[in-house]
């Protein structure tokens, strides 16, 4: 099992570990509910060093990369990032990514750990006019998330954080360590993702903890999952995969069908023209039973018409929430759903995401 540079630190904090895509990572420290609440009310610190990083360089880097992703990279400026999907020719999703533009000839891709080798192979086949390198073992990554994040981080860096807007980044020193300081995250709250040299990670973690005056809690993958689900942020392997398209998953906003050719464009345009057959919706259970990945959505006769992709008890609202693919036409907000939970069929109601209101948000560039 692979370990991040924080493994010994997590052990000393009494973390419970879980196998996540071949990585031994903390699922929780004190408890998911407490860690979730810390991020929604103060701040939490996540080790996300398992995430993959791929670098694309060369004079043709922009055009080469733009031809394999659904979002429009041509509008990015240096120091800006974007969320995007990368599709197969049939519109199925290879992975969802955050892409950072350092310069027109230099991009960094942050990808899912479990997809990193697959993404590298796929990109190696598709990108012939720029160089591609897997630099995952160079970067430790920390996610500092929550309303107190800017205050805590500013104590450790000269880089003015008020100048780093949502989905923008800067290069700077954090606690004396060279870092990519990115105003991004997976929780819905304001916060940063810090990319630092692999071996320097623990120093930065400890400096952040010390600078926080007790406002920062270590947080594990359990809270990361409940926080992202409350926002309806997709998780690859649960809500999206090679059998789902970005349009079905509600990721039309990162699918720019009016940009130049990209892999999957024709299939996605055809799917849009023909009309979608199913959609990923957010729902709240009417009762306490908890929906889980793989549970069926059934019609009045008990026949499966869709399936749950993610579900949990929302620590913020204490309601049971989930995401599911349902047939087109049955996806409107307010629509009732029947979810088969073990032997019973329980009712749920489709809602407009996000499930909860955050108390902070990254500042948007005017």
């Amino acid at each position, binding site marked *: 099992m692979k370990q991040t540079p924080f493994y010994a630190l997590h052990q000393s904090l009494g973390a419970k570990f879980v196998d996540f895509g071949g990585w031994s990572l903390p699922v*929780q420290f004190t408890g998911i509910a407490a860690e979730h609440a810390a991020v929604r009310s103060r701040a939490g610190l996540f080790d996300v060093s398992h995430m993959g990083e791929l670098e694309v360089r060369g004079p043709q880097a922009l055009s080469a990369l733009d031809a394999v992703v659904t979002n429009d990279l041509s509008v990015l400026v240096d120091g800006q990032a974007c969320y995007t999907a990368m599709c197969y020719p049939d519109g199925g999703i290879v992975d969802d990514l955050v892409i950072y533009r350092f310069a027109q000839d230099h991009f960094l891709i942050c990808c899912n750990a479990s997809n990193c080798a697959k993404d590298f192979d796929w990109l190696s086949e598709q990108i012939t006019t720029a160089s591609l390198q897997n630099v995952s073992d160079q970067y430790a990554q920390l996610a500092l998330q929550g309303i107190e994040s800017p205050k805590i981080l500013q104590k450790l860096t000269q880089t003015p954080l008020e100048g780093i807007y949502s989905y923008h980044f800067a290069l700077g020193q954090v606690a004396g360590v060279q870092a990519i300081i990115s105003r991004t995250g997976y929780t819905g709250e304001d916060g940063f993702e810090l990319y630092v040299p692999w071996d320097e990670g623990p120093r930065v973690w400890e400096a952040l903890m010390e600078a926080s005056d007790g406002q920062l809690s270590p947080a594990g993958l359990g809270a990361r999952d409940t926080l992202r689900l409350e926002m309806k942020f997709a998780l690859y392997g649960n809500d999206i995969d090679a059998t789902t398209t970005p349009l079905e998953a509600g990721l039309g906003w990162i699918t720019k069908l009016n940009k130049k050719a990209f892999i999957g464009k024709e299939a996605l345009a055809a799917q849009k023209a023909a009309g979608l057959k199913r959609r990923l919706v957010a729902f709240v259970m009417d009762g306490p039973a908890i929906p889980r990945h793989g549970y069926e959505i059934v019609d009045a006769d008990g026949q499966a018409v869709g399936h749950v992709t993610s579900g949990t008890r929302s620590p913020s609202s*204490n309601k049971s929430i989930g995401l599911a693919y349902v047939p087109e036409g049955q996806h409107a907000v307010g629509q009732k759903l029947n979810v088969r939970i073990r032997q019973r069929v329980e009712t749920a109601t489709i809602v407009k995401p996000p499930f909860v209101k955050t108390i902070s948000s990254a500042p948007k560039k005017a």
Partner: protein
Amino acid sequence: MVPQNLRYTREHEWLRLEADGTVTLGITDHAQDALGDVVYVDLPDVGASFSANDALGAVESVKAASDVFVPVDAEVLEVNELLKDEPAIVNEDCYGKGWFVRLKLARVEDLNALFDAAAYEAFLADA
């Protein structure tokens, strides 16, 4: 140390033979600790009958659902209504207020085939 007067299963349930011949079932400290904060317990209907190794309900933390099995043929006499409003009691007092169901066993002697405390401790040590 696990309580000495109980029987145990490989699925980390405990069973206690009461003075009136009924049997109380819950989940062990190991199980509640592995689950983390319990947020929901799915209990069977009173009067429901189960065959040995059936799932009689489920216990859920934020992150996962885990079936609760009954290791012997049994009928449900009573369920712990407290768990519907306060599922976290399973974390706080798994051998006491956090019990799940009271059962009438088809054959009380079936209990003898289950782990005693020493055997369960050895099972935990091996795991």
